[in-house]
């Protein structure tokens, strides 16, 4: 743990706020017009995934958390939990599904992710920017539907539904952007 000035809080770091670990989503400089400057920090409570905002005085002391990053492999969903394994030591770790939220649908078999670990508890999961996934269900497109402008919904192996071009068929492998959950391209193996 190291102490930093609130003015130096950066997006993407982990800080201790009211004694709990928070992920910094966004920071902004705030000048109230008449008066000293503040750093407005939008952060995510790592226990329950809720977002909150606080205005720190720029010279406030804030604890930056030294988090450890571990490369892990996705194993399986277990109710409200997700199980990962260290591919070298075979050590397993369980992560509450709430930490991944919608991103849980990006997990495909054997995908490698980075777990952010603080005091032996997983507080974050970093996915690769793009993942390969197989289409489990793609209906034939209904021609003449102008609303969808050349796209149709297809269901991926994980249950994720993406808007894909009309030529995509069941069994195709697609590249999906994990940030936006958008179709990127079809992969020709």
């Amino acid at each position: 743990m190291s102490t930093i000035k609130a003015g130096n809080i950066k997006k993407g770091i982990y800080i201790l706020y009211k004694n709990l670990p928070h992920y910094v989503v966004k920071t902004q400089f705030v000048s109230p017009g008449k008066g000293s400057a503040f750093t407005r920090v939008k952060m995510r409570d790592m226990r329950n995934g809720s977002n909150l905002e606080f205005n720190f005085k720029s010279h406030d002391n804030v604890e930056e958390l030294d988090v450890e990053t571990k490369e892990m492999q996705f194993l399986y969903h277990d109710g409200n939990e997700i199980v990962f394994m260290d591919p070298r030591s075979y050590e397993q770790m369980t992560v509450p599904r709430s930490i991944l939220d919608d991103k849980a649908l990006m997990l495909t078999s054997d995908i490698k992710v980075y777990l952010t670990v603080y005091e032996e508890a997983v507080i974050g999961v970093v996915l690769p920017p793009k993942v390969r996934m197989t289409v489990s269900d793609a209906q034939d497109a209904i021609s003449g539907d102008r609303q969808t402008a050349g796209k149709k919904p297809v269901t991926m192996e994980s249950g994720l539904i993406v808007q894909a071009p009309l030529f995509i068929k069941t069994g195709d492998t697609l590249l999906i952007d994990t940030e936006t959950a958008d179709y990127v391209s079809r992969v020709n193996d």
Partner: protein
Amino acid sequence: MKKNWQKIKETPSLAERFLMREKVIDAVRLFFKGQAFHEVETPLLASCPGAEPYLNLFETSLELPDGQKKQAYLLTSPEYSMKKLLAAGLGNIFQICKTFRNQESLGGKHNPEFTILEFYRANANYLDVMNDFEAMMAFICQALSLNAKKVVYQGCTFDLTSPYLKFSVAELFEKYLHLNADQLLNLEFLRQKAQSLGYDLSGLESLSADLAWEELYNQLFLNEIESKLAAFNKPVIVYDYPTPQAALARKKASDPRFAERFEVYLAGMELGNAFGELIDPKEQKKRLEADMLLRKELGKKDHKIDQDFLTALEFGLPESSGMAVGIDRLIMLFADVSNIDQTLFFPASEAFLD
């Protein structure tokens, strides 16, 4: 990353969003012309910046043909020049211009150069200026064919019909923090309140009592009050600020602990700031000197006090009230975008960030 001009080229309908700027500025200009205000231009490049102690300046130098160099600044506000014009007897005046602030975030709600409307009404008090602002907003709605004076911003509908909601700073501290006017002006009460809310107070030890009070006041206002104003579906006018929070405003005759200043908030954005203008040259000189001391305490470079401005006050200003309005914020509101970069053809973030 694609630049805004490339995005407009690809999606021509986007141009409409950016041209909201033109529509809003046209409407503002037409409104003030219709009220018989004179439009004026004053310099943006100045030898005396006359900025608030907390604002950071763009500094440059003016070079004369003989090689002499003069320190120069880009202004954070055209306020001093415009007050000199009030002293000159021009009457009601307005200006739409760029102003500059350094060391602020790029994007979000800020751009280092931004457009403001500054207007002054002579022989008027701050209540008159509140009415001017409400009438101007109604006029913009009309120009944009928002006949019901309702605007949808980021999924919420806001009602811009008059009168706006109005709360004094003391009322808000009472409402949200249960502190009365005496307590909110008292460092000890603010310290206890901040402590009970779990704030870090360690940085305050090294500060003077005035500065410590100001820091706590601002932090409590931002975290516990301003954030709650976003929930109202009408513009909120916050008025009567503690005097230390209003360096250029006149003190209230009925209670000199507070000054005639108001701000307008809507949807979590600060749209404008207004004063019943301080016209007493002695009081003004005292406050400017106090600001200079504060600049030093904050470790910022000091600069000259604008003597010409004080001379203008000595010549005499009519009782006036004035307001600065963030034009970019109005454009964000009417264009329904959350980032100022989506309203500027060339946001600074495009040019200066990789």
